[in-house]
């Protein structure tokens, strides 16, 4: 018996030794693609025509809207993207923004921000959400198990779930017109915009363009490109004349959202060092207590 115990102990220590102990805790590294496609939305140019919503509805073959796309009454209530609309435009009036100025409306188009380091992709246990090299955060329904952890993780509260479908519900969100980008076309909303409020291009070029507009017309814009640094950067960038918090843009930290959890997981489970070390420790304790403990017959004692 004692030889087998010794062998058990030996095996346990070998397992612990073989697993690499973390010599240093590595800083978390971003996996953001370098200079991906992006869109710059200039809210001072948006006239609330909802052509972008209509184009999105058309190219994604979504069901017809309950209110027609030229019905201005939709602006009476604040809307969120949902399973039948991947993008929506909301209106915020000046009276709500600042007293004293001429009443003026700001229209805000919202959709998936296509984060550079998306929380949804880090959260998804099956990799159904992923960040593409071209910038798009895409959803692969064939991998989805329907856990909805992506909805929990998204700091912008964008993914929508088909709760009404019985057997094969899907997560729905803006695709950045991924297939159209591959064909060299613009995202449908950007192509449809009549006022060039949505400009499509490479992220670095668009950031330079945003900075140029702020520099040339400082009275027109607040000095902030939303999405440049929020949650580590997003591929949808916004310029605005009104402060962003007043337009329902969430006030977010500048660190990429998955950084904390991925650092914790990496520190604890890199090469499974901590489970292996714990296993070895417990095995050693068990070997000692079995030798010294008040023993009954081994078969009896080992069965819980």
């Amino acid at each position, binding site marked *: 018996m004692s030889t087998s115990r010794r062998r058990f102990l030996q095996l346990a220590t070998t397992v612990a030794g073989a697993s690499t102990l973390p010599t240093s805790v590595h800083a978390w590294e971003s996996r953001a693609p370098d200079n991906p496609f992006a869109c710059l939305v200039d809210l001072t140019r948006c006239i609330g025509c909802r052509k972008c919503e209509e184009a999105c509805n058309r190219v994604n073959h979504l069901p017809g809207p309950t209110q027609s796309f030229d019905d201005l009454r939709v602006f009476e209530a604040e809307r969120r993207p949902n399973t039948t609309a991947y993008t929506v435009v909301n209106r915020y009036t000046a009276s709500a923004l600042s007293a004293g100025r001429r009443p003026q409306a700001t229209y805000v188009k919202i959709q998936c921000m296509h984060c550079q380091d998306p929380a949804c992709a880090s959260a998804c246990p099956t990799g159904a959400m992923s960040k593409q090299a071209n910038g798009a955060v895409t959803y692969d329904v064939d991998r989805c198990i*329907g856990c909805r952890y992506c909805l*929990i993780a998204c700091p912008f509260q964008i993914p929508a779930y088909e*709760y009404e479908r019985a*057997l094969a519900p899907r997560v729905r969100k803006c695709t950045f017109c991924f297939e159209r980008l591959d064909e060299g076309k613009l995202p449908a909303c950007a192509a449809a915009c009549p006022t060039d409020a949505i400009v499509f291009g490479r992220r670095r070029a668009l950031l330079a363009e945003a900075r140029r507009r702020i520099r040339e017309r400082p009275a027109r814009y607040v000095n902030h490109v939303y999405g440049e640094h929020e949650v580590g950067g997003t591929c949808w960038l916004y310029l605005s004349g009104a402060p962003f918090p007043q337009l329902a843009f969430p006030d977010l930290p500048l660190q990429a959202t998955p950084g904390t959890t991925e650092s914790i997981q990496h520190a604890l489970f890199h090469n499974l060092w901590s489970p292996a070390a*714990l296993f070895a420790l*417990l*095995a050693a304790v*068990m070997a000692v207590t079995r030798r010294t403990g008040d023993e009954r017959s081994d078969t009896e004692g080992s069965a819980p």
Partner: protein
Amino acid sequence: MTAEPRPVDRRFWTPGVWVLTALVSAAAVTLIIRFGFGLGTVTNLDNAHPWGIWIGVDVAAGVALAAGGFTTAFLGHILGRRHYQPVTRPALLTAALGYTMVAFAVFVDLGRSWAIWKFLVFQNHRSVLFEVGICVMTYLLVLWIELVPAVARRLGRRVRLLGWLDLGVRKTMGVFIILGVVLSCCHQSSLGSLMVIAPTKLHPLWYTPWLPLHFLLSAIAVGFPMVIVETGLATRSLRLDSEMPVLVPMSRLAAAALGVALAVRLGDFVARRSYLFIDGSGASISLLVELALGGVLPLILLVIPAVRRSRGGLFLAAALVVLGVLMNRVNVFAVALRPPFAEHAYVPAVGELIITAGSVAALLLLYRAAVTYLPILSARKLEEVH
């Protein structure tokens, strides 16, 4: 005291069992509606609140409250305190049934339950949920392996395969016991990491990057109290001897574990200045109930020797710890979630409540059936004591 585990051999169909059966039946009907017409028809889940009480209670609290399995296995079989072994087997049974219910709740909550196998094929190793899932799945298997000897004692001669399995399991039981403790430590802590991915959505009263540590320590702290509560309920309901000689020394360990968990939690709470967010809101009240009623009060009770030695006092203190950890998990997963664009607060639908109640009822039914027919409990019947 050192009596061998044996089937309890009491009447199975009591009025209480009929009530539990009715609850399970109601849940079964609700399940048909859920799978026939979708999550939307029986739940109040929406895009702002994608997780409700099925994740908060059935999964998160279920996993925490099944911690009696690995804590007693550690005490009785790794530290070799044979004195505690009479409660190890029932604790492992509760853990096995508890984790089976957790797996079932996940199955019901998943939008594409039939696609659950994809979890094993498309592995995202960066995902906390992947790690939790893989650990829980493996641990469930380990728990049922640990229970093979109990089942084999009864059915081993009739089912040949079970007999052989028993032989193999007995020789390697040490490995499974240790594996069970390791897997538990991994997923109990990682369950706390789950919500760390949503720092801006989690109420600052609960958000801290140390959530995994708090989850692990509170799981360890609730393990022994859960065993005390279970044993209290089972011995009373089945009219058995109280097992107090095992539970009283265990309660001192419970006090120590609770003290550590509470000290770390409050230390972090003060260091992060989370107390600044205590106001009159429902969330604050929920936190105070969790910490005061389910943490500080039972700790005070457990350090009083007279309380530890009294059957009722010990049960009350242990039940408060269980309540505290249950509330903590519900708080972290449901109450603390502050989505930026919620149209209304989340309140569980009747359908969600029915399925949760039915799951708990099913757990109790299976426990009663198991101790009635299998050698799980060691306590003597009351009529044998006198």
